[in-house]
């Protein structure tokens, strides 16, 4: 069957077997290997991508179900070479070790911050509670997301000042709401 969707802002159309999972479509048909697979049972969340701005576990979504939808993966987080504050936050606060759960964690964090720019620690923990990390013990992930909340898109890393016009990162927010 033929499916079409928007992935990280690009229109893609592919011929696939109906049974193909979204995670395999993204990884193998599109070659975007930043999305990982970890469990088959929707427990670990390493396969999380954003579908129309909402986190979904792509191991339990058929590629066909994403037909006509907007998909965003880790490869679509940085805008024009500028890291999303969530990506920067994970580096600043050691929110990752092996890096395997990281793309899913960052996408969930991005979705959280889009709807709640100033979450408290409990809200962050709840947001990522459908995802497993075996390395970090989560505290540094919470700190990473808080770092991103304190440095919204448009944060000027040189001057340490935020800007209101969105800057390079502003395009990211637009992409989610588009």
């Amino acid at each position: 069957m033929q499916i079409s969707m928007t992935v990280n802002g690009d229109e893609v159309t592919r011929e696939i077997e109906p049974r193909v999972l979204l995670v395999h479509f993204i990884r193998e048909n599109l070659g975007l290997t930043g999305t990982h697979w970890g469990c088959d049972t929707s427990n670990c969340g390493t396969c999380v991508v954003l579908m129309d701005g909402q986190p979904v576990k792509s191991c339990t979504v058929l590629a066909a179900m994403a037909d006509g939808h907007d998909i965003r993966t880790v490869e679509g987080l940085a805008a024009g070479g500028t890291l999303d504050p969530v990506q920067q936050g994970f580096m600043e606060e050691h929110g990752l070790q092996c890096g395997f759960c990281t793309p899913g964690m960052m996408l969930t964090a991005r979705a959280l911050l889009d709807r709640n720019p100033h979450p408290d620690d409990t809200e962050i923990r709840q947001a990522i509670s459908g995802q497993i990390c075996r390395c970090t013990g989560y505290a540094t992930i919470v700190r990473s997301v808080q770092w991103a909340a304190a440095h919204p898109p448009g944060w000027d890393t040189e001057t340490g000042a935020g800007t209101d016009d969105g800057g390079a990162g502003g395009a990211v927010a637009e992409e989610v709401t588009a």
Partner: protein
Amino acid sequence: MTTTQEHAPNPAAGDPGRPIGFGRLQRKEDPRFVRGKGTYIDDIVLPGMLHGAILRAPVAHARLVSIDTTEALAHPKVLAVITGKDLQALNLAWAPTLSADVQAVLVTDKVRFQGQEVAFAVAEDRYAARDALELIDVEYDMLPPVIDARRALDPGAPVIRDDVEGRTDNRIFDWEIGDAAETEAVFATADVVVAQEVVYPRVHPAPMETCGAVADFDPIDGRLTLYETTQAPHAHRTLYAIVAGIPEHKIRIVSPDIGGGFGNKVGIYPGYVLAVVGSIVTGKPVKWVEDRSENLMSTSFARDYIMQGEIAATKEGKILAVRTNVLADHGAFNATAQPTKNPAGFFSIFTGSYDLQAAYCKVTGVYTNKAPGGVAYACSFRVTEAVYLVERMVDILARKLDMDPAELRLKNFIKPEQFPYANKTGWVYDSGNYEPAMRLSMQMAGYEDLRREQLEKRERGELMGIGVSFFTETVGAGPRKHFDIVGLGMADGAELRVHPTGKAVVRISVQSQGQGHETTFAQIVAEELGIPPESIDVVHGDTDQTPFGLGTYGSRSTPVSGGAVALVARKVRDKARFIAAAMLETRPEDLEWEKGRWFVKGDPSAGKTIAEIAFGAHGTVALPEGIDGNLDAEVTYDPPNLTFPFGAYICVVDVDAGTGHVKVRRFIAVDDCGTRINPMIIEGQVHGGLTDGVGMALMEIIAFDEEGNCLSSSFMDYLIPTAMEVPDWETGFTVTPSPHHPIGAKGIGESATVGSPPAIVNAIVDALAPYGVTHMDMPCTPARVWEAMQGRARPPV
């Protein structure tokens, strides 16, 4: 020396926020990971690559009657189906394990655990390979299984390993250490003796990335390139050479980015071998990546120790002796990854952090119809089981003596002046200063206030518990003369090259699974040579690119490879002195080192930086005799002893009296890993281990039913803590450097996994004291806690 001073960034470097050497530093590997540009095993795609899938046994013990692959082979996308019979023809049906046993690659005679490998299908794509498995018809003749380790040695128990000639029972080994008679004499005259069976259930490391391989065999020059999820690429290369008969110089093992290992990725699994066979048979690259059920059911589990513990003390609370008798369930093949002379790993450090008069243990290993393994999950070669046993026994003793468990520990610690300390089972603890760590953890916790709060709550009928544990690890195996794995001595190499412009590359034998080696090892070179970490590349995980060494497990990377890297940098620094002397037209002995440069004693303005010396070495400077025209060096580091990190942990729990649900409210961890290279990475290692501890203490168990069906074969049944089950960790540290390690570092990777389970269980038992509970086994699930409260605590296995 014990201090709480952190290494500060070096302001002389001109950038006070970025240390030249030790200090908090963002990781060099992170930019690729946060962009989704890591390369994990399943990200590797080779031209023409095929996909393999393994058919696994649905039962635990059965004779294999027949396999019919006709239909599978008729599938248009299937290229090969390999069975045990095919492997027998290649002499590859059985492979040696890391513990001098053999393991079936594919079943030839009988199935010995549920999930065992029966056939391997190779197809054009991932889905077709799975389709092929559905088309293979296997007939089994059921046999009674041995599931309960306690019944494995019963007369008349089915013999699992009848493949081994002359074997008549399921005993793998009996091993003992310590002086039994001396220990008995102490026990016989002690005021107080307490005994308790302590079970450490079977758990699984379950890294987020499962195991996998991509094999690429080139039939023209006979060269095998094998990408695989391995923590020990060099050891694997040697073993493949021995097993498969491929000359070692024709084998290249590449361990790409690893999505977590925790000991799960040390062994050689049948899937890796099958990917190689698949590539040889089809002439194309073959990828095999296991699914989560395969990972949980067939790859290396951890623990599964049933320990009969005893502790003897005076009535004043002076601990005199500890002894234990252990039944160790190794599964169907003895495939534990551990040093040859240590069938029970480093369990013999069960004497803990205490100054004892005597100690003795006996360990009996048995086969059961369960998956093989046993040493994994950040256990430091079974230090996990040892620490759990002694720390539970000390708590039970404290209850018996009506003493505070922290006070009892403080009273019995090995004193600082006793180090190096020879314990009663043959270890020589390199350095330690236990009391300050214990006191710091109590201060951070507000221990006295917590005890007051607990009393108030008890009066109101609320269940609050405070658990203490104090651990000493033995890591960094090890001296070659004492420690080897399948005959390979546990030393590690390092090679360092400083390029003409002063940029460097260091090649190491160990392999990161997320520990941040690319950063830590660059910082060690930076500390020794004074060039910034960003100017130093760390190459690892490729046997064609790195020197030989035994790999990363047992917290050995910093103790062994870290030593190698420090020494190779010093070798370069020493060589640089001769070259600098030539450049400055003076004598080497007239030069003095400051971080980054050699200068003339008494004339600091006359000096040469490492970059200048590197250019000189590669340039036209007339070099002294015996000095090669480069600034390179290599070493192999054979550590003189292991290192002994330690720590003091305090856990606070609240137990719901109505449901038995345990909430870990606070966790305070004070660790001493000697010299601290990157505090950010150290904190991360501790946090991860503490989370493992919460998992094992509260929810994780690989359980089986009576027929040997694995009841924990997916993440729906094998529960792992999420962000909701763990608190915001409170960490602290002391610094007691290792006296023999080149930079005084001891290793940190497994400390928290080792030290945290007893703190949590001690806290739970403490909370349940009003119910008369003195012990309960993990996992402390709500149902099991509730049963313990009703006086019906039961072992999990």
